Each structure stands twice: as structure tokens, then as C-alpha cells.
């Protein structure tokens, strides 16, 4: 081939690259290996990780059952090996699946529009906050009860955009609404208030009151949600949220040491054109047949360049597909059921741990599937649990542990945990 098109050798083909810029010698890397060898090496690497079969840890990533259909469907190569569906005529399958995803997210959140996905819940929160800012309003208020990892990403994005982030304090594990009112009321530059629902400590409180306070201050309400909890909770749409973001990982994605996950981003119709990322819209073809296309693209970086509201290009389309299959597989009854299982078990465990001597940090506050207990020496307790093959709750300070349950935690497992805690504390 090389000779066929008139080149002597590889050097000749690469002659436009000046010699002084080329790598001298060879890459200092091991020689290539066979597929069989690499498969074995990587199997050993995977074995160096510890897979816990009993998990009581959440904190932003949740171990749920993944219906078998999810990975089977997402593994279809027409989906997994396709590019972004710019060529609509041969991409109707991808486009329709995204349109269905957008619809399901709207249904779950009670919002008018959803984009085609973002990277993860934290980056979605950062983009959600930025969406609410304009020339006149650019200060982002964040509840102290938001997951600190989400807060850090919001701050990082805000460092880029030179926007102020102000923290609204909490009282007994929930947003201090009096403080919120005072802070927002005095700031004509307040763009939005970011709250988490349920919050980092698992607590669900005052969402309606917060919505009134935020809107009275003419700011926008951004809610970071757990999509499973929306199987039962009042929706952000009903509460009056302007933008909704969330980590979609619980909808059929594995833990995977943190990714790939799924950034959910939905909004009111009013914010439709401020949305970042891709949209799929319905239209017709030249013969009047229903079809789908990427639309409202003039918002995006490939057209608007430095004036685009975000640089997002690649998203998490395959993860969005998994979430769609998950939601379709479990249906409206299943999403309610899984939410009920998660929260019922958390209530059982919280009571059990309290009896075992772990005092609840926010007694009496309503919670979903996470809760905080006080504990004198979290690391000693957690390492004992680890020895028994249990991944205990997340230590969030030197005297507090954040526990989590999902539908995968059986009563038996929880009893074993409770017994172990009793022994350790005895």
C-alpha cells in the first residue's frame, strides 16, 4: 500500500514531521503481549481489589441490583459502538432511545425538559448552578448539607467562571431556613440555591419552604436528587425546582470505582434554552414520518464556540441507555418498590444500631436510605466490620458514620451488623 501510493518507507510518509521533533529511539514500555496474557494479568489485577458482598456504604455511590436486561441491552454493539447520532438517518435507534430517556427523566423529576446526559451527578450540579447565572445574578448559594464532593466540583467550576460560592449553614442536619432567608434576602446577585434531596445525611426536610424562600428572593432553586428516592418523594417539579441535577448511577449502573456514572440534568421549560449538553427532539422526515434529531444545537460548543454556555461534548449516552432500560424494566411499580425497600431497611437498621449503642446524630429528622450515627472511634469499628467482610458506613468525621441501605441489604445482614456493633461497643 505504501509503495502503491508512492512512498519509499514509513520515514518518507512521515517526512512532514521535522526530524528534531520526533522521538529518539523507542518508547520505554514493555513489548506487546497476547490477548491471553493480558487477560490473565488484568484478572490478577482485579483480584487485588476486595469485592464486598455486604455493603452499608453510600455517600454518593449506591450498590443496587442491576436487572439482567440492563447490560444485555447496552451490550448490543449497534448501541455501544456508535458515535454521537449526528447522521440522523442511520441513527434513529440511538436518537429514539435518548428521546425516551429524556421523557423518563422528566417523568421521574416532574420537570419539563431533560438533556441527553452529563458526566456525573457532581459535574451536573456544577453545570446546573451555572445555568442559573447571568450578568446580574452570579452568586451561587449551596446548602451545607450537600455532599462535600459535589460542593467541591461546584467550587472548581466556579473558580473557572469566577463566580462566588456561598455556603448556607445547617441546623441539626438540615438546611437552616432562617439563615437561608437572611442570606438570600440581602443579595440581589443571588443566582441560585443548591440543595440536595435527600441530603448528604439522608435527611429530607423543608423542601417546600426552601422553594418559597428562594423564589421570594428571585433566585432559582437547583435540586440535586437521588433518582431512586423520587420513586416515592414529592417531585422537584411539584416543589417548584427550576433546575434538577442528580447522580444517575443508582439506575442500573455498577459502582465501578466511581465511573462511568450518569449526570442527570432537567429543567423547567423556561430554562430550556439555557440547558447545557445535547437534546434530542421529535420531527418528521421528508415523507412525513416521525423521526428524531439532535436539536437546539446552536447552544452548543461546536457552533457557539467561546460563547457557548458549556464546553460539554461527549456525554454518558451509554449510561443513559442503561438508566432507560432500568426504568423500563422496573416500571412505575418497581421504582416505588425499590424506594420503599431502601428506606424501610434504613429505618430498621437505624433502630437496630441505636439499640446497639450507636446514637443517631439527628434523631427525629425524616430520612430516606442514609443516616448518621455518632461513634467514638469510627475507624476501629469499621475495621472490625471489614475483617468480617462487611463494608461499613462512611466515616464522615472523627465521631460520625454515614450508613446506607439498599434493597440488597437483607434483614439477616443487618442483624449481623447490629450484633457486631454490639460486640465492639461492649
Amino acid at each position, binding site marked *: 500500500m505504501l509503495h*502503491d501510493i508512492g512512498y519509499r518507507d514509513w520515514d518518507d*510518509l*512521515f517526512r*512532514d514531521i521535522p526530524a528534531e*521533533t520526533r*522521538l529518539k529511539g523507542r518508547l520505554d*514500555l514493555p*513489548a506487546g503481549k497476547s490477548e491471553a496474557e493480558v*487477560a490473565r*494479568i488484568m*484478572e490478577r*489485577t482485579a483480584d*487485588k481489589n476486595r469485592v*464486598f458482598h455486604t455493603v452499608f*456504604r453510600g455517600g454518593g*455511590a449506591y450498590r443496587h441490583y442491576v436487572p439482567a436486561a440492563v447490560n444485555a*441491552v447496552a451490550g448490543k454493539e449497534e*448501541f455501544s*459502538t*456508535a*458515535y454521537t447520532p449526528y*447522521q440522523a*438517518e442511520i*441513527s434513529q435507534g440511538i436518537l*429514539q*432511545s435518548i*428521546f425516551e430517556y*429524556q421523557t*423518563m427523566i422528566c417523568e421521574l423529576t416532574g420537570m419539563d*425538559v431533560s438533556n441527553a446526559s452529563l*458526566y*456525573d451527578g*457532581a*459535574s451536573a450540579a456544577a453545570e446546573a448552578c451555572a445555568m442559573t447565572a447571568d450578568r446580574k445574578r452570579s452568586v451561587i448559594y449551596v446548602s451545607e448539607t450537600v455532599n462535600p464532593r459535589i460542593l467541591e466540583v461546584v467550587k*472548581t467550576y466556579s473558580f*473557572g467562571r469566577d463566580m462566588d460560592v456561598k455556603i448556607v449553614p445547617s441546623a441539626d442536619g438540615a438546611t437552616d431556613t432562617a439563615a437561608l432567608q437572611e442570606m438570600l434576602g440581602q443579595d440581589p446577585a443571588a443566582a441560585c440555591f443548591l440543595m440536595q434531596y435527600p441530603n448528604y445525611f439522608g435527611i429530607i426536610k423543608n423542601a417546600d419552604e426552601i422553594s418559597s424562600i428562594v423564589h421570594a428572593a428571585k433566585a432559582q432553586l437547583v435540586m440535586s436528587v437521588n433518582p431512586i428516592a423520587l420513586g*416515592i418523594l*414529592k417531585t422537584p417539579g*411539584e416543589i417548584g425546582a427550576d433546575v434538577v441535577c442528580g447522580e444517575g448511577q443508582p439506575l442500573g449502573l455498577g459502582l465501578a470505582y466511581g*465511573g*462511568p456514572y450518569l449526570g442527570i440534568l432537567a429543567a423547567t421549560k423556561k430554562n430550556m434554552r439555557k440547558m447545557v449538553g445535547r437534546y434530542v427532539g421529535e*420531527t*418528521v422526515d*421528508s415523507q412525513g414520518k416521525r423521526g428524531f434529531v439532535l*436539536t*437546539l444545537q446552536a447552544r452548543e*460548543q461546536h457552533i457557539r464556540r467561546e460563547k457557548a454556555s458549556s464546553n460539554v*461534548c461527549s456525554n*454518558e*449516552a*451509554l*449510561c443513559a441507555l442503561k438508566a432507560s432500560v432500568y426504568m*423500563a*424494566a*422496573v416500571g412505575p*411499580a*418497581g*421504582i416505588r418498590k425499590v424506594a420503599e425497600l431502601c428506606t424501610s431497611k434504613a429505618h*430498621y437498621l437505624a433502630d437496630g444500631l441505636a439499640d446497639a449503642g450507636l446514637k443517631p446524630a439527628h434523631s427525629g429528622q425524616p430520612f430516606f436510605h442514609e443516616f448518621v450515627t455518632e461513634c467514638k472511634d469510627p475507624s476501629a469499628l469499621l475495621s472490625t466490620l471489614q475483617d468480617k467482610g462487611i463494608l461499613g458506613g462512611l466515616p464522615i468525621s472523627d465521631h460520625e458514620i454515614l450508613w446506607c441501605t439498599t*434493597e440488597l441489604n437483607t434483614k439477616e445482614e443487618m442483624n449481623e451488623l447490629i450484633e457486631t456493633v454490639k460486640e465492639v461497643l461492649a
Partner: protein
Amino acid sequence: MKLIFERSVPGRGQKIFPSCDVEVKLPDVPMRASAPRLPEISENELDRHYTALAKEARGVNDGFYPLGSCTMKYNPYVNEAIANQKGFTDIHPLQPADTVEGCTEVIDTLEKYLCEITGMDHMTFQPAAGAQGEFTGLLTIKAYFRDKGDLNRNEIIIPDSAHGTNPASAAMAGFKVVEIKSNEKGMIDLDDLKSKLSDKTAGLMLTNPNTVGIFDENITEITRLVHEAGGLCYYDGANLNAVIGIVRPGDIGFDIIHLNLHKTFSTPHGGGGPGSGPCGCKDFLRDFLPGERAVGTGADAHYEHALKSIGSLTAFHGNFLIMVRALSYLQINGGDGIPELAHNAVLNANYIMEKLKDIYPMAYDRICMHEFVMGLEKFHKEDNVSALDVAKALLDFGIHPPTMYFPLIVDEALMVEPTETETRETLDNAIAAFRQIYEEIVKAPAAVTASPQTTPIKRLDEVLAARHPVLRYNFEQ
């Protein structure tokens, strides 16, 4: 085709979750007024729905996909098999560092490979996509100058041929974008660059080879000028496939880079993602990198943050399973095989270009790297056949069209990137298709503008979609 909601029948469903083995207890808070209208569907119906959708989608596994600037190479199955092991998929991101030594090994080994390939000293894997990698790099540059107390440097210089993400990322990082022109050879206009460098220059963002598939031969001069002006040089690794194992950005003056693991290092594109956009840098920028990394083994294992970190881009450690695939890919190719990737990528692009340039006008008449750009303005003016028409005509040959109307500096552009994983027979087939389309342009242009004819759906009304957006299913219709 029916939407999944149109296949839904009330009360139908699947038994997925067990019944509750403890007392059902819900928090005493306001609940949703009605259930979400998710599909109610059997697994059989669900599977048939998605199988039908899959038949109306096209991936690399279906056929040739010469989508310029997207590096749609074949992705080996073994990567998928390795990434799907429970030892990777079932690891909680907040597990103690001593229980994730396999993950740490993946990240550390991958860092070694990629630093050797790029000539960088350190790398963060937290960015989830190329655009986020760019943003990370630019924030790092911003933090570096802040740390030095140099608050004056607020401009990033970007060539007019750049991907849209470059100026968008720079703007997101709070920089003013200063555009420089490309010259008639498709390279940076050095005089224009010199005139725009100043004590306000924070850096230059460059893709090399650039988006017209040309390696800028003045590259060392360019990076020297930027450094002399006090700025940093950022390398956009979007087109690394052309020079991998042959040129290292770190050897030619670049201080900070990002890579697209899902392009150059093989992960299926998933219909738009997920990707992974690690950001690498020279030693002097290390303290600014984002995220946390597990270090040490056994009882010493713990997580560390960089000292002056810009923060975090994603909640945890980035798109880990994409890193696993990239590492598998690199171990199979190895130090000896990696340069061959570039050889064959460049050869395949030149092969197609040579066999078409007698009839298709090329934007630049010279050797290309891994991709080349046609400028079909002549067809548009003389035959009323646009780049879009040619692209759509390729659909009828079972070929995914090249990237259209990019880069912006070429009128009626079609950008072709065959990648190294295609055989000569596939390339010959594509060449024959292009030539046949040309004959039609000359003889019967109306047939070309009426294409595609064989796809399940014809050209779609994008104007209607944008003027009156319908972005979700209407259950009330």
C-alpha cells in the same frame, strides 16, 4: 417505530425486587402525587423494543466509519471482557485504600504508559471526557499563574481551526479567547501568533496534527515563542492517533495536555459517551492537579490530594472502567506496537486521499496525517451538490459519512479519518463508493441530492425540530 411508552400496558411488568423482609416504613414527608409514567412492559417486549432500535443504529461493528476527528477505530472484545470483571465493576469508590489496590495498580500503570507516550511527568484521570480534560488543563494554568501572583495573564490563544471545545473550555475557565489565523498551508500563521503574544498571554492551546490533518512543522518555534512570552503550551490530544509513538508532546515544548482515552486508546463511543479525558502535565504543574489518588499498599495505603489542587471535576476517580480498557489496549500493543498504530492510521488516510484527489478537491494538496479534508465548494457552485449531499449519498453505500462542515476554515468540508483498524479492501470499497458518487454528481446530480434512499427514514426536518422543540413524549396526545 413505536416509542417504548406506546408499547406500555397498565399493570404489566417484571418481578425484579423481593418483598420487604422488615416492616415497611416510609419517612413522614410529602410524597409524589402520582407515579411516574414509566413503561409497564414485559422483559420480552422490552428486549424486542431495544432490538428494533438497535437495528436502526449504526456502530463501528456494522461497517466503515471514517468520521473525521472522532477516531472510530475497532475496539477489541478483550477490553470489554476485562472491564466487566466483578473485581472492577463492584468496587465502591469510597472503599478504604487498602481494599482497592487493583484499582490503584490500573491507574498507576496507565499513568506510566501514558506519561512515556506523551513525555509528561504526571497525570490525573478524574476528567470524564476530553472537554473536561481541557477545562482541567486550563484551570491548572489559571491556578499556576494565580499562585505566582501573575494575575494579568488572562488570554488563551487558539487557532481558528480548533475544535469548538477549545474556545468553549477557555471561556469556561474565565479566559479571554484570542484567535489566530491559519496560513494557506493549513498551519499557524507565525506573524499573527507573534502579534498576539504579550504579557497577557496565559497560554496557547493547540491540536497537532491539527483539524485539517496537518502536522505543524513550526511546532518547536511556536512553543518557544509562547514560552518566551511567558505563557504555557497546552496540547489537545484529540489527534494523538496520528503521531503516537512518533512524537511526544512533552518533547516539543508542551507543558500540559489532555488525551481522549475513548478515541486513541479504544473504548466504544456508546452513542456519545462515556469517555475519559485524563490531563497530563510536567512536574512544575503537579501540585495543581485535581482529585485524590490512592497511594501506598497494605496498612500504608491512603488517599492523597495535590497540595494546591484546583479541586475536583467529578465526584470520585473519573471513568475508571474506561481506564481499564485503555490499559488492556496498551499492554496488548506494547512499546513496539504503539508506533505501528500511527503508521497505519496515516497510511490509510493517505491511501484514500491519493485515490480520490484527481476528482475530489482536497483542501490542502500535501501529505496528510491520520485524516484529510476535502473542500467541495466547487461541486456546490457548479453542480449544486453540497458536502451534506455527498455525505448522505454515502449512507446508501453502507458507509458512515465523514465529519461534515468542519473545520470551519474550509468551505463545504468533509473530513475523513479511516483509522488504522480498517483493511485495504474496506478502503478500496469506500474509494469506489466516492468515485461512483462523483460520477453521479457529473451525470445526475439530482440523484445525489435526493439521497439517502435506502435508510429507514429520509432526511429529517431539522428546522421544524428547532423552531418548535418537542423534547419528550406527550402522554396526553
